[in-house]
């Protein structure tokens, strides 16, 4: 596994990839003892008998089942309405670490937004030769319908989820940007609720930054981009593909929390370029739509004509400035895996700053030189579909069989443009409750960044954990679980109180 720090590798320069087998970074235990932020957790784990943890784990499961938080998993048979496993040991990030991350996230999202405004506008970054024009303009994620149109407030990525991994005390990488319809924020909120109910004392012994304001911040962000004529109380709605969508629970949850309607395509209609929702009291005008439907299905008149979940005429209303869409269509060009290597370049180009968050070096199999390297080092690399998501159709070289490597070898040769490859990172681990006891498991982090008139980040995020020993795949569709993520308001539990507090066993 690779664990060295890279800043970026937009050029695909292999000379900086120096394979080095290292152990994964343990977020709780450093070589010289327990890390400060985890001091109290470590004591709590030592003092709490296994039976009590199991009991709490069971309670947590009952809690989630009763609330009905399910995630749909398709194509595997069995019950498609499943519960995502929740691990009761929180993942902790110290304030100073979070502050650095947070500044970097703001910078990155500003650059992504500037990139979108540019590629659908003057295309200066292409003219400057910083990114190959064809890579952008011929990309499936590039929407002709957005060319020459500026969305309300110039905002494209109202809600972005940036997937981060950690490899060392000060080494965070962006694994992936999500600028279309990132999900998972309901888990950030529900996981915290669950922890507060299950472990009130443990929570009280930490100064945890609250996350409960997220729905309010989201509503503010959405209201901020409403058309001017909507006045002080714009009508906001969440557009969902319906109950069979994997994130339907989240759509309803956010609508409930914000006090807005969750609508399906058939609930909306467009008359004279104005969007209305059908209510029992007649048509009601809609000003802002937080859409959780992919671009292709948004409007059968503009995109896929066979879409049954979209709203005919929506794009016309949007382009007429009568409704705001969050996120803006066409954002997929910014989170495309083939564009990803160029994000650090965007930061320099648009903001004139050095990127604060590092990218993972990425090989585009489309390029001859990169492909050659990937094919001869496939057993060391992670190979992903450039268009894929959810952990489907990917190869983790070091964990794959020879046959699997050969299969991907053939696939890359057949369709090189579909694949990218990255070195296998040693994702950090957190203590996690497993069958055999408490063991380190790999985690990632998805913070949610809101962009309206200003950028807002609720201190926290979704921590996903790979529950299988050694597994690096954290996706819930692939057997991953979640943890509550605590951003501490200080560097850790007050050391002056450690002795007296250690007497309190359990939570």
């Amino acid at each position, binding site marked *: 596994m690779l664990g060295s720090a890279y800043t970026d590798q937009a050029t695909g320069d292999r000379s900086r990839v120096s394979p080095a087998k290292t152990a994964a970074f343990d977020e709780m235990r450093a070589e010289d003892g327990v890390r400060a932020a985890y001091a109290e957790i470590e004591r709590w784990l030592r003092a709490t008998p296994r039976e009590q943890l199991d009991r709490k784990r069971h309670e947590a499961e009952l809690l989630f089942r009763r609330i009905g938080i399910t995630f749909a998993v398709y194509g595997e048979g069995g019950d498609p309405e499943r519960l995502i496993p929740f691990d009761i040991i929180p993942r902790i990030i110290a304030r100073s670490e979070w502050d650095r991350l947070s500044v970097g996230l703001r910078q990155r999202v500003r650059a992504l937004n500037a990139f979108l405004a540019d590629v659908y506008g003057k295309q200066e970054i292409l003219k400057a030769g910083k990114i190959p024009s064809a890579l952008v303009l011929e990309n499936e994620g590039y929407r002709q319908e957005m060319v020459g149109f500026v969305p309300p407030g110039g905002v494209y990525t109202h809600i972005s989820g940036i997937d981060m991994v950690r490899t060392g005390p000060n080494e965070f990488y962006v694994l992936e940007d999500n600028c279309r319809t990132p999900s998972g924020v309901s888990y950030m909120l529900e996981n915290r609720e669950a922890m507060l109910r299950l472990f009130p004392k443990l929570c009280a012994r930490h100064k945890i930054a609250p996350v409960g304001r997220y729905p309010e911040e989201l509503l503010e962000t959405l209201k901020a981009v409403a058309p001017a004529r909507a006045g002080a109380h714009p009508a906001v709605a969440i557009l969902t593909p*319906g*109950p069979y969508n994997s994130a339907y629970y989240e759509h309803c949850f956010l609508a409930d929390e914000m006090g807005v*309607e969750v609508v399906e395509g058939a*609930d909306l209609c467009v008359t004279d370029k104005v969007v209305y929702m*059908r209510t*029992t009291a007649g*048509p009601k005008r809609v000003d802002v739509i937080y859409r959780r439907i992919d671009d292709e299905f948004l409007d059968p008149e503009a995109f896929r004509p066979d879409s049954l979940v979209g709203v005919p005429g929506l794009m016309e209303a949007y382009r007429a400035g009568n409704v705001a869409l969050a996120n803006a269509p066409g954002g997929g060009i910014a989170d495309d895996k083939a564009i990803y290597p160029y994000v650090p370049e965007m930061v320099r180009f648009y903001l004139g700053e050095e990127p604060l968050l590092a990218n993972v070096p990425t090989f585009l199999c489309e390029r001859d030189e990169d492909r050659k390297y990937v094919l001869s080092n496939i057993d060391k690399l992670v190979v992903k579909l450039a268009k894929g998501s959810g952990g489907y159709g990917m190869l983790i070289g070091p964990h794959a069989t020879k046959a699997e490597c050969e299969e991907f070898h053939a696939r890359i040769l057949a369709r090189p443009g579909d694949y990218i490859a990255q070195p296998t990172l040693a994702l950090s681990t957190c203590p996690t409750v497993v069958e055999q006891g408490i063991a380190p498991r790999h985690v990632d982090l998805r913070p949610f960044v809101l962009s309206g008139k200003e950028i807002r980040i609720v201190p926290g995020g979704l921590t996903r954990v790979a529950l299988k020993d050694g597994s690096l795949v954290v996706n819930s569709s692939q057997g991953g679980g979640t943890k509550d993520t605590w951003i501490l308001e200080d560097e850790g539990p007050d050391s002056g109180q450690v002795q007296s507090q250690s007497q309190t066993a359990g939570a």
Partner: protein
Amino acid sequence: MLSRTADNLFWLARYTERAGNVARGLAVASRMAAISARLGDEVAEWRSLLTASGGDAGFYRKYETPNAESVVHWLVFDPDNSSGILSCFEAARRNARAVRTALTVDMWQALNDSWNHLRNLAPEATEGEQLPNFLGWVQDRVTLFNGAAHDTMLRNEPWRFVHLGTMLERADNTARLLDVKHELFAPGEEGAVDYVQWQAVLRSVSALRSYQWVYRERLSARRIAELMILRPELPRSLAACHAEVADTLEAIGIGQGGRMGECHRQAGLLKAQLRYGRIDDILEEGLHEFLTGMITRTAELGAEIDAFYIKP
């Protein structure tokens, strides 16, 4: 409220009520068939039940003769019968799932648990002597759902659309049950078989005891017709159901600042005609003509509600 939400609430209530009504019809018909078997016309009972359920054309496309086996299968399990018990619960749950946040937990559980039980039901559960238990269970589940809705829903628009669905479906059902037996109400000699049939009709709307409490007289065709059509005290009578429908529609209209339309007019007219109607006039006009008219007007009212609130 979103029109789609109103639509889902209205139909989940209708389907749930329909499942209960099918179970009521089946319970009475299987009892009657057992009696008629001795008297020689078992098939007639099953045939009239199929007519009452409104799906007899579909039945005859798939089965030759109506008998215990074919009718029970058709009315309980057959996926081709959209008014079968299983289909009704499936449709009710599908509607409920689409509006989870508009339902109370108790309502959701009543529907979801019923559905989970039904989808794992062994075919033997409806065979022979098991049938009455099964039908009793279905009626219990419907009563549980109605009770959960009645006891836990806020009295605002969502509740009103649920209630509207229940009452409209119930009015339709009572008219159908009575209509398939309309020949019993023709003037003429009354025999022993008629008496058993009357009891069955009353049982199907849980009104045999109620009849005694209201009239304290021996069963007569005229009084049974009056009880089931015009008496406001009987909760499944046409008069009682249509009064609820009209009042509920009016409450929705008032809640929206007095916005009303054709559905309100039709519901008000039905309510008034049943409130002030006389049974002798109805019998003179012809019971069958009257009931067929009621079934048609109930369907028209449903369409008007749809046109005003759901798909304008």
